[in-house]
């Protein structure tokens, strides 16, 4: 654990990418292979099962720290991270431990068989033999909130270097579900084919955004000079659903979400069509709610995400279908290096053969001859229930990760309203102890009605100023929430708006965020609930 804690600390202590890679390589070279795999699992979001619930852990930490519970809560709001709060409040350790990461995780995994008293004893003993930094990462592992400020691609770059592999190969080999207990470092680095694990998805290829603001749209000339001739590109609508990879191999089917969660059971409607695909097929596409052959807004799909049990009612009210837009494997062969156009032909062939055309859709190619024509079509996105347009270079391979060059997303302007900030709460992580989570309201007569929460969109300087304003203009405190004097006006952008019975305002927004601080607007000139509802487009 010492090496792992030091790794975490060293990564925290530099902002330089090269230095981070060096630190990671150093770690990989110096720890046993089993530790490498555990580290890889933790750094790529494969957390061990949570064995002690957070409430119990919190209570025991309060006991170990010997402070009142309310003071622990206050401290948590200041620190913005539970694992760190616990670690900071406990007395210093007097003994130390040389157990490796692998040994610690093995111990954690045996907790399932222990009763509450035994777990508590184990935890108290463990805390007493770990220093501050070790305790912090240990708590992070236990609370399942393990996140590091290092991208997966850096970890892979470092390990690929150590193992003498291509990063893309390694990225592929760590996709999907595996356990560090059973997937060994030797297996990972030995030459092998992807077929060893029939459920393994390919790394997703992600589009780069075409950056523009509402004030400054990209001109046709800019598109021409950046992207070249429009005839080199295919255009599709950009759907707002769940990006997924669908696999049929050896008679078995697997559905993976972008977050590498196995979601096969969440979409039973898709099973027949997937089972009907030829073995050795992998599709990339979007899962959306559909009715009568038309996609429904994301909030319909949202009602079934996160449900453990899909009731008959939900399946009826929010049926899903797929819009596939790529084929990564065909007849058991990885075809990612074929061109976009070649893969499209294969996709169309698969689509033509499906007995389930109402569930297996393929994305329609937008017909256009010039950039100007496409720009005009983009204006129809909202009517198509699309977020904008996807541009894909016809001769491009299917690549790994987010890359600039061959896949672009060209989203439409978000909807927006001017709203007044009325509540604020402290943030987490690097925004700990700063008021960064705001609730916004619009006017309904002479009352302000809250309608959205937003966290992002301000610069650090602006955040400091708003934080300062909040601390000086608090009307009331409710636990961690402050009611703030309504005065500051912000332009709030969002991707979509729908009716909601669960919200006071009667509407629910999709992806609300702060577009800018309207210093120029007094609160009286913020928008009204009526103007917000007018955007419902009913």
């Amino acid at each position, binding site marked *: 654990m010492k090496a792992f804690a030091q790794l975490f600390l060293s990564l925290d202590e530099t902002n330089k990418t090269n230095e981070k890679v060096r630190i990671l390589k150093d770690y990989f070279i110096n720890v046993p292979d089993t530790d490498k795999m555990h580290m890889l699992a933790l750094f790529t979001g494969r957390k061990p099962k949570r064995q002690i619930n957070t409430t119990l852990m919190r209570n025991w930490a309060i006991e170990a720290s010997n402070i009142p519970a309310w003071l622990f809560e206050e401290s948590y709001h*200041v620190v913005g991270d539970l694992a*760190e709060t616990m670690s900071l409040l406990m007395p210093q350790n007097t003994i130390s431990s040389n157990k490796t990461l692998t040994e610690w995780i093995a111990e954690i995994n045996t907790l399932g068989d222990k009763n509450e008293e035994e777990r508590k004893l184990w935890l108290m003993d463990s805390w007493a033999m770990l220093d501050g930094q070790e305790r912090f990462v240990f708590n992070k592992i236990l609370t399942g909130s393990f996140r590091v400020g290092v991208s997966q691609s850096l970890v892979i770059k470092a390990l690929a270097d150590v193992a003498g592999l291509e990063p893309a190969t390694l990225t592929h080999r760590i996709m999907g579900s595996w356990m560090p207990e059973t997937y060994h470092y030797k297996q990972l680095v030995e030459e092998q084919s992807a077929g060893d694990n029939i459920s393994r998805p390919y790394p997703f290829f992600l589009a780069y955004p075409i950056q523009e603001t509402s004030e400054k749209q990209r001109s046709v000339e800019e598109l021409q000079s950046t992207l070249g001739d429009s005839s080199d590109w295919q255009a599709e609508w950009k759907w707002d659903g769940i990006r997924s990879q669908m696999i049929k191999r050896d008679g078995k089917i697997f559905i993976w979400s972008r977050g590498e969660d196995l979601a096969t059971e969440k979409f039973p409607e898709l099973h027949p069509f997937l089972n009907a695909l030829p073995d050795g097929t992998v599709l990339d596409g979007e899962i959306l709610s559909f009715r009568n052959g038309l996609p429904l807004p994301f909030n319909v799909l949202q009602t079934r995400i996160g449900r453990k049990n899909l009731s008959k009612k939900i399946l009826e009210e929010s049926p899903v279908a797929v819009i596939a837009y790529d084929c990564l494997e065909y007849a058991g062969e990885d075809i990612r290096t074929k061109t976009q156009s070649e893969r499209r032909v294969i996709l169309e062939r698969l689509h033509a053969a499906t007995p389930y055309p109402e569930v297996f859709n393929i994305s329609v190619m937008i017909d256009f001859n010039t950039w100007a024509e496409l720009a005009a079509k983009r204006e129809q996105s909202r009517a198509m229930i699309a977020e904008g347009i996807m541009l894909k270079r016809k001769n491009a391979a299917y690549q790994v990760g987010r890359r600039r060059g061959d896949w672009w997303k060209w989203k439409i302007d978000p909807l927006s309203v001017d709203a007044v900030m009325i509540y604020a709460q402290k943030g987490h992580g690097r*925004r700990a102890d700063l008021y960064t989570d705001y609730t916004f309201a619009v006017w309904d007569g002479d009352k302000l009605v809250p309608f959205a929460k937003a966290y992002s969109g301000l610069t650090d300087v602006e955040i400091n100023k708003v934080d300062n304003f909040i601390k*000086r203009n608090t009307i009331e405190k409710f636990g961690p929430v402050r009611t703030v004097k309504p005065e500051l006006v912000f332009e709030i952008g969002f991707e979509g708006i729908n009716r909601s019975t669960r919200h006071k305002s009667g509407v629910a927004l999709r992806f609300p965020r702060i577009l800018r601080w309207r210093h120029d607007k007094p609160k009286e000139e913020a928008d009204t609930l009526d103007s917000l509802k007018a955007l419902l487009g009913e």
Partner: protein
Amino acid sequence: MAKQPLLEFTDRGIYCSKGKFYIDPWKPVDDAVITHAHSDHAYWGHNRYLAHHLSKQVLLYRLGEINLQTIEYGEQVIKNGVEISLFPAGHVIGSAQVRVEYQGEVWVVSGDYKVENDGISTPFEPVRCHHFISECTFGMPVYQWKPQLMIFDEINSWWRTNLNNDIATVLVGYSLGKAQRILQNLDLFNGKVYTHGVIENTNQALRNNGVQLNPTERITPDTPKDEIRKGIVLAPPSSVGTPWMRKFGSYNFGYCSGWMAIRGAKRRRAADRGFILSDHADWDGLISAIDATGCEKVYLTHGYTATFSRYLTEIGFDAHEVHTLYGSEEEAEVKDDTLNEDKNNTHAVGGDLERADTP
């Protein structure tokens, strides 16, 4: 009828109506007693100033021509029958607690303080009193300082690593207090200490005041980059990310502050290294200092006042939150131009925007 308290909290500062003077007022007044020279305690525009000897040159440097009387720790000044004396606060060189006595009733205003002996400021001395007005910048139990020796070991070994890698070392800390504390604890066998102009001016003011400081060299446009890389640079927070700092080429910058105890705060500063080094008392330090005064009532002026006063009340103190414009967590974060207005500092060399000299 309730007796009028000896010290009151007004919208100009802490006021003694019997003695007709203010302590650390933030609006212009006739008579001001100043705990220390940080800009949230020593404002410009008062008619008369009273402070400790060791604050003299820094106050003159920061506030220009002012009518200033300075005294020694323990020395007594009587204003309208009220006895005023200063006691060491251990916060920065020349920082003082102000003891006010009238007809046997004693009040003490802490200003900012720390209990650890930093080897350069006169160490904090608890003063028995009936009423104690205390800061609590770090009044949260998550703030627990390690002895400064450990921190300076970390700093010196980090500096050595940078020297070995041929990278410039920039250490950021407030120009009055932190900078000198660091300076006196650097391992000068490693190399030379270079200073940003704002820090060097403060050093100069302190030297003029008779304070012995290790040798430093002011960075000028002519200072060779290669030489700087063989030493260490002391810089104020306002210089972070400025062209001034970028001209060192490849550099590693460390930030010395109590806020570095929290990972989030550290990441927000985007410093290469955060060193937990504060000129304020930590949680245990605050409680022990308050306890040592034997006070009947304690008033908390800035920092985590709500939480800290609630906790003090629970453990048996008669604690109260008061509103002032001192330091406090909020100012600590703010560094924008508007803050320079109160300073009105005719001598300042561009860019020193720090205000509440927070850790």
